[in-house]
């Protein structure tokens, strides 16, 4: 299967780019792991559930309808249920990238798409930091709660606490409240001053934010700024959460602990970009984000990136970036330089939203000393069941100083999620930088599929290798 442009990720960024490029004559294949287009923000109720009025849960329903209808009317080929595990650089003798995906219920059937250009629009994933009791059933991520609301239309629980930091908590709290859940508290670690300072900014720059604030008030959600969850309680299921106030230095204030009964605790500490595919392609990163230029091009020729893979900034920013990427690609594939004036409006919102999220980022950070609440027996890496004490021992007694060595000494980050979940937590406990791990496989891939990848004939000779390769026992 071959195409001009392969777009990976059918969220706002990927959709906007696909439509912009295809409207300009580019043959686009849009590839996404999901059953339907929409990504995180426009996550769709599964058709089978027969949701009567999904729009009640969607704040930007009209934008979504435009994208959805645009996709249906376009010539974009949309491949659903395709989990991309690797994008392969063009080999010397053949032009084009090869997108390797897995499909089917068990994600084991291979599928490949060849494309002259690739747009990485893979979005981000949630960052969650551990605390005692966070592995109890009933503790979910903020995004998990949102996805339950939007996708499955399940009411997450009867009494919820929403906690952590960042702008994601607002829609989650209001969404839960709107679905009839009693939200006992919205616990935000940013101090009341920071919070109060950034709410008006939110309201001014993001019209929807004013709506969130109003809805929080209307639903009488108590907002506890400058607070943090220190422990979740329960035997086999969550029964309560203890929250406490933070001092200006980011430490828990003694004597401020308060126990709030709840059966759902939605926690989130912001988002991190998905950069696996970009890194395997050799794209440069800026910190944790894929580096892009004004046209959303990465530093690898033929590879563009847009949306949250290039930095966390919400759906509207993803749309603007996707649109710009789509137009740039259309021009570049024709061999012409695009005229940036053509996307001036999108460029203005991109600048405005990036500035805004940079400001939000500086306010919404986890408490500086969050690791002090993490007891030695708190599980940090759930896949491998590594506890905080083991991480501390690796650093204090065995000479680890970075994430990779901690991982090798403790197995934290070696399991199914490959450290996507525990990476920030382990880095915090180890006191080192959360360097992005290299994960050349964005998804686990069956060895049989890997052995034949890129070989339509099924042979496994190294005919395409640039360098003679030998194998050996050590």
């Amino acid at each position, binding site marked *: 299967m071959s195409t001009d442009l392969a777009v990976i990720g059918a969220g706002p960024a990927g959709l906007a780019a696909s439509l912009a490029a295809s409207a300009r004559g580019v043959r686009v294949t849009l590839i996404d792991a999901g059953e339907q287009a929409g990504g995180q923000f426009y996550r769709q109720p599964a058709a089978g559930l027969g949701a009567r009025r999904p729009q009640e849960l969607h704040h930007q329903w009209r934008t979504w309808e435009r994208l959805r209808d645009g996709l249906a009317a376009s010539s974009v080929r949309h491949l659903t249920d395709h989990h991309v595990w690797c994008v392969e650089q063009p080999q010397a003798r053949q032009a084009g990238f090869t997108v390797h995906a897995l499909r089917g219920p068990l994600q084991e059937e291979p599928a490949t798409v060849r494309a002259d250009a690739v747009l990485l629009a893979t979005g981000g994933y949630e960052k969650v930091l551990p605390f005692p009791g966070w592995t109890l059933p009933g503790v979910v991520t903020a995004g998990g709660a949102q996805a339950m609301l939007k996708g499955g239309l399940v009411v997450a629980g009867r009494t919820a606490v929403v906690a952590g930091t960042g702008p994601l908590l607002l829609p989650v709290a209001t969404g839960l409240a709107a679905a009839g859940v009693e939200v006992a508290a919205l616990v935000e670690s940013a101090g009341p001053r920071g919070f109060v300072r950034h709410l008006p900014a939110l309201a001014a720059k993001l019209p929807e934010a004013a709506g969130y604030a109003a809805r929080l008030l209307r639903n009488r959600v108590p907002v506890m700024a400058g607070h943090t969850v220190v422990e979740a309680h329960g035997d086999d299921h969550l029964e309560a959460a203890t929250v406490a106030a933070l001092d200006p230095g980011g430490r828990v204030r003694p004597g401020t602990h308060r126990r709030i009964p709840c059966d759902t605790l939605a926690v989130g500490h912001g988002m991190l970009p998905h950069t696996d595919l970009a890194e395997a392609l050799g794209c440069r990163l800026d910190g944790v984000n894929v580096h892009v230029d004004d046209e959303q091009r990465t530093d690898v020729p033929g590879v563009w990136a847009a949306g949250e893979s290039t930095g966390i900034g919400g759906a509207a920013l993803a749309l603007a970036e996707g649109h710009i990427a789509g137009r740039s690609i259309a021009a570049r594939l024709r061999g012409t330089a695009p005229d940036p004036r053509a996307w001036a409006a999108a460029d203005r919102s991109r600048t405005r939203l990036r500035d805004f999220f940079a400001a939000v980022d500086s306010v919404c950070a986890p408490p500086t000393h969050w690791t002090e609440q993490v007891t030695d027996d708190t599980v940090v890496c759930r896949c491998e069941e590594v506890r905080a004490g083991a991480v501390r021992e690796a650093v204090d007694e065995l000479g680890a100083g970075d994430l990779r060595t901690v991982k090798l000494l403790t197995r934290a980050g070696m399991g199914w999620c490959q450290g996507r979940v525990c990476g920030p937590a382990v880095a915090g406990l180890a006191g080192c930088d959360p360097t992005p791990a290299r994960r050349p496989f964005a998804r686990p891939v069956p060895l049989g599929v890997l052995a034949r990848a890129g070989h339509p004939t099924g042979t496994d000779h190294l005919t395409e290798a640039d360098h003679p390769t*030998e194998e050996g026992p050590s």
Partner: protein
Amino acid sequence: MAGAACALYAARAGLDVTVVDRGPVAGGTTGAGEGNLLVSDKEPGPELELALLSNRLWADLAEDVGEAIEYEAKGGVVVASSEHGLAALTDLVAAQRAAGVVAEQVPADRLHDLEPHLAPGLAGGVHYPQDSQVMPTLAAAHILRASGARLLTGRTVTEVLRTADGAVRGVRTGHGDIHAPAVVNAAGTWGGEVAALAGVSLPVLPRRGFVLVTEPLPRRVRHKVYAADYVADVASDSAALQTSPVVEGTAAGPVLIGASRERVGFDRSFSLPVVRALAAGAVRLFPFLEEVRAMRTYAGFRPYMPDHLPAIGPDPRVPGLLHACGHEGAGIGLATGTGRLIAQVLGGKAPELDLAPFRPDRFEEEAA
């Protein structure tokens, strides 16, 4: 790993030892390779002697830290898929046995007693009970801790300090000087750079290798298993035995498949063709792996020297400077023997193996 082993044996010999590294423990190639302690892949010669000594020392160490470093004396199985390959393997085994290797021929119909999930139709194989394994990062960290040596991580050596008459008197780091009458260069792939700081040349070069790691599985691969089909040339060519990848289970569950060999400098970029070849080789040996998922892959840079032997021992060009680097694809396995030999030299004893083949200045003469 080499530095940790040198520290252990030197401290045991009563020396006061400081270990300096610019990164964390095992942040170099040790944290990016595998932990096979193999005698099976070595032809008779100095490397095999060092391997036999090292494996004995590993077994001794395992009595104290075996569990912590995931030591397993599991044995290796080398299989041949053709009669031709089997004949060559048989010749190699005879030579290895004469050099002290324990090796037992396994006829085709008994191979599956050793490895029930091996592919059908193999010509036969050899069982090497001395082959073992450790988890390299754990080994380096625990051996360092057991040595009691002072550990200074995050400090780059920027200069080798010398006296007026040229002898070593310590090293300079970004965090100050460390004085010592003897300096051991255990900088692995970067050993040439450290040697240059002392004004001598040592040709250590990187040889890239990728390893594949699968999802955790119940034990289905019992030994270290690899195919030796290129042994045909053993008699005529002294180059290392060429084989398909080693497949092995680990204490923690994942199967490791490694490793490729390429000379591409320090290029870290992911190479699908290389990893694909590893996967294909592994599936050929163990068809059940077809369905098993690869979770990740990583690359490391083996420190290799032109004649594929490490540099071990005092450098006659700089009094007080010793080298313990350049072990290529066997630096974990050979670390214990290397550490023991270095400690013997430092303690003024006669080393128990002849160090001549490992002389650090051997390439200088060639060039001259």
